[in-house]
C-alpha cells in the first residue's frame, strides 16, 4: 500500500494539470456544500431569533376546548394534565422550544374581578437549553396588573389574600391599557392550589422555530409532533407573523436543493472525465504494472488513492473557500445574527470525510475500467 501511495504522489506531481483540475472540481463542490451549510445554519438561526423576538407563537390547549370560544374571547374553560408539559419538553426532535404552562381563571379578589394566571417555569427539550424569555415566579409571590393593584390599593411588598391564601406583591406592572391590567400572575403551583385544580393546566405556550421546510404547513408539522406525544392536546399557531419568514426560508432551501445537486453532478462528471482521461493516459503504465505482476486490486487502489489525495486536498481547500466566502458575505446577508457567523470547524471534519468519498465515487467507473482493460493491448508494440 505504501508504495502505491508513493506512485500516486509521484504521478500527481508529474501530471499537475490533471491534479489541479480534479482538485478544483471537488473543491468547488465542497465549497458549495460548505457555503450552503453555513447559509442554512445562519438562516435557521436568523429565523429562530426573529421568532423569539416576536414572542410565543405556539399555543397548545386541551383538545376538548371549544376553539371558537377560545378564538373569540381568548378564554379557556377546559384543562389538561400538567404532565403534558413534561411529556412535550422531554422530546428531542421537536421544532418548538421555550415551553411555559399556564393555568388561568377568572376570580374575585376583595370583590373585584381579576384574572389569575399561574405560570410554570420555562422548560426546554433535552440539549436545547436557551436563555429564558419569561422569568418564573416564586411560590408565595404575585405580580399584579396596574388596575387590580389600584383597586386593591396595594404596592410592592404588601400582602394580599386570594381565596384565603396570603401572597406578597413582588411587582406591580405599569399600566398596559389592556386585560393585562387586571391580571394576577403567580406560580403555577400556587394557581393550582388557589383554584383547587392540582396538576392541571389549560395552556402551554411555546416558540416554534418555523424551520421545517419539508412541509408547507408548519402547524400541521407541529400538530403531528404534539399529537404523537399528547393526544389530549390541540395546537393553535400564530402563523401570520411567522409565515413570511418561514416561506422565505423554505424558498431558500428549495433553491439550495436544486442548485447544490446540480453543482455536485457537474463536479462529479468533471472528475469522472478527468479520471477517464488519466486512465487513458496511463494505459501503457497499467499494462506494464500488470506484466510486472501487480494485481487488479493494486491497479484499482492506485486510482482510488489518487482520488483520495484529490479529495483530501479539495476537502481542505473547499472548506477554506466556503468558510471564507460565508464569513465574508454572511454577515451582510444575515445582519440580525451576524456575530453568530463563525468558522464551523466541524465542517472541516465533514469536508475531509466527504470530499475523498465524493472523488472516489466519481472516479469509480474509470478505475474499474482501468482494472478491466486488456493489458496485452496496451503492451503490443507491433
Amino acid at each position, binding site marked *: 500500500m505504501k508504495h502505491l501511495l508513493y506512485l500516486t504522489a509521484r504521478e500527481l506531481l508529474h501530471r499537475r494539470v490533471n491534479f489541479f483540475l480534479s482538485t478544483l472540481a471537488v473543491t468547488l463542490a465542497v465549497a458549495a456544500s460548505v457555503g450552503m451549510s453555513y447559509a442554512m445554519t445562519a438562516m435557521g438561526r436568523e429565523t429562530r431569533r426573529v421568532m423569539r423576538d416576536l414572542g410565543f407563537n405556539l399555543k397548545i390547549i386541551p383538545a376538548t376546548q371549544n376553539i371558537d370560544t377560545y378564538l373569540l374571547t381568548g378564554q379557556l374553560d377546559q384543562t389538561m394534565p400538567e404532565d403534558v408539559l413534561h411529556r412535550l419538553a422531554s422530546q428531542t426532535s421537536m421544532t418548538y422550544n421555550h415551553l411555559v404552562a399556564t393555568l388561568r381563571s377568572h376570580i374575585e379578589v376583595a370583590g373585584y374581578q381579576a384574572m389569575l394566571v399561574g405560570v410554570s417555569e420555562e422548560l426546554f427539550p433535552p440539549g436545547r437549553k436557551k436563555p429564558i424569555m419569561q422569568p418564573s415566579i416564586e411560590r408565595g409571590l404575585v405580580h399584579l396588573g396596574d388596575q387590580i393593584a389600584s383597586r386593591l390599593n396595594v404596592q410592592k411588598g404588601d400582602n394580599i389574600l386570594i381565596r384565603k391564601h396570603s401572597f406578597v406583591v413582588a411587582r406591580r406592572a405599569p399600566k398596559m391599557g389592556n386585560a393585562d391590567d387586571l391580571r394576577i400572575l403567580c406560580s403555577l403551583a400556587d394557581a393550582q392550589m388557589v383554584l383547587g385544580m392540582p396538576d392541571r393546566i389549560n395552556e402551554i405556550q411555546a416558540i416554534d422555530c418555523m424551520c421545517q421546510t419539508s412541509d408547507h404547513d408548519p402547524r400541521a408539522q407541529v400538530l403531528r409532533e404534539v399529537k404523537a406525544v399528547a393526544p389530549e392536546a390541540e395546537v393553535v399557531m400564530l402563523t401570520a407573523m411567522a409565515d413570511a419568514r418561514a416561506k422565505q426560508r423554505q424558498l431558500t432551501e428549495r433553491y439550495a436543493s436544486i442548485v447544490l445537486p446540480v453543482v455536485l453532478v457537474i463536479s462529479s462528471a468533471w472528475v469522472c472525465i478527468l479520471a477517464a482521461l488519466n486512465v487513458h493516459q496511463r494505459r501503457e503504465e497499467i499494462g*506494464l504494472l500488470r506484466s510486472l505482476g501487480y494485481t487488479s486490486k493494486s491497479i484499482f487502489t492506485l486510482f482510488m488513492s489518487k482520488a483520495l489525495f484529490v479529495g483530501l486536498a479539495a476537502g481542505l481547500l473547499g472548506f477554506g473557500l466556503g468558510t471564507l466566502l460565508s464569513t465574508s458575505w454572511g454577515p451582510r446577508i444575515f445582519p440580525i445574527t451576524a456575530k453568530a457567523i463563525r468558522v464551523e470547524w466541524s465542517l472541516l471534519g465533514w469536508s475531509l470525510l466527504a470530499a475523498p468519498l465524493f472523488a472516489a465515487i466519481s472516479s469509480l467507473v474509470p478505475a474499474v475500467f482501468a482494472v478491466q482493460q486488456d493489458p496485452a493491448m496496451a503492451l503490443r508494440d507491433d
Partner: protein
Amino acid sequence: MTENLLQIDHLTKRFQTRDGEVTALDNISLAVGRGEFVSIQGASGCGKSTLMLTIGGMLQPTLGVVRMGGRDIVQLSSRERTTFRRKQIGFVFQMFHLVPYLSILDNVLVGTHFQGTRSEIVELLTTLGLQERLRHKPNQLSTGERQRTALARALINNPPLILADEPTGNLDPENACEVFRILSQYRDTGGTVLVVSHGEMAAQWADRTVWLKSGKLLDSPTLEDISTNSDISQ
C-alpha cells in the same frame, strides 16, 4: 540434453474481429531448455508479440498448453497467473514502457514491487552503465539507456525466464549489440531468454533460432520464407 523450462504444446490463439476470426497463433509447439537463449524470428504481424504475451500469461490462448517449471499457466486463475508472472518472468518491450514520472532507480524498484534494496539496484544499474543516471527521468535518457533501464527492471528479480519482445527494435546497432550482450550474460548465469525479433542480430547471439510465419512455427524455413522478411533480407 538440458531440462526444459518452457514447454508449449499446440498453442492456438484466435481473435474475433469485425471482419471475422483471425488466427494469430496456429498450433504452435516449442520447448525451451533451462539456460537456453532462443530467438524467434518473423516479420511484423506474424504473431510474435501475441506469442510472448501468451507465454507470459498476459493473454489466454484459445487452445493449447503453456507449461513452465512443470505448471500449466493456462490453467491458473488470473490471480495465480499474476503471482506467477511476478516471480517467474521478466518482460522487456520494444517501447521500453518505463513509468514516465519515476526516476530510473524507482523504475527498477517498481519491478521489485518496492521490495528490492537500493544497493542491489544501484549495483545492477552500475553494471549496465547507468550509475550517473539514477535520478534521471526516462525522458532525460537516450533510447539505449532507456532499454538498459527496462532490462534492469526485468533482471532485478532474477527470474527464470526473460521474455524480450523486439528489445532492439528502436535501437541503433551499437545499443542493440549491448542489449544482446546483457541478455547473453544473463543466459550464462543460468537464466533462460526468449527473444522475438524481426532482425537478424538476435540470431547471432541466440543458441537457437526458430521461425514464425503467419502464426505458425516453421521447422525448416526456406530461403523464400527468410527473404519475405524484409528486415532479415537487408
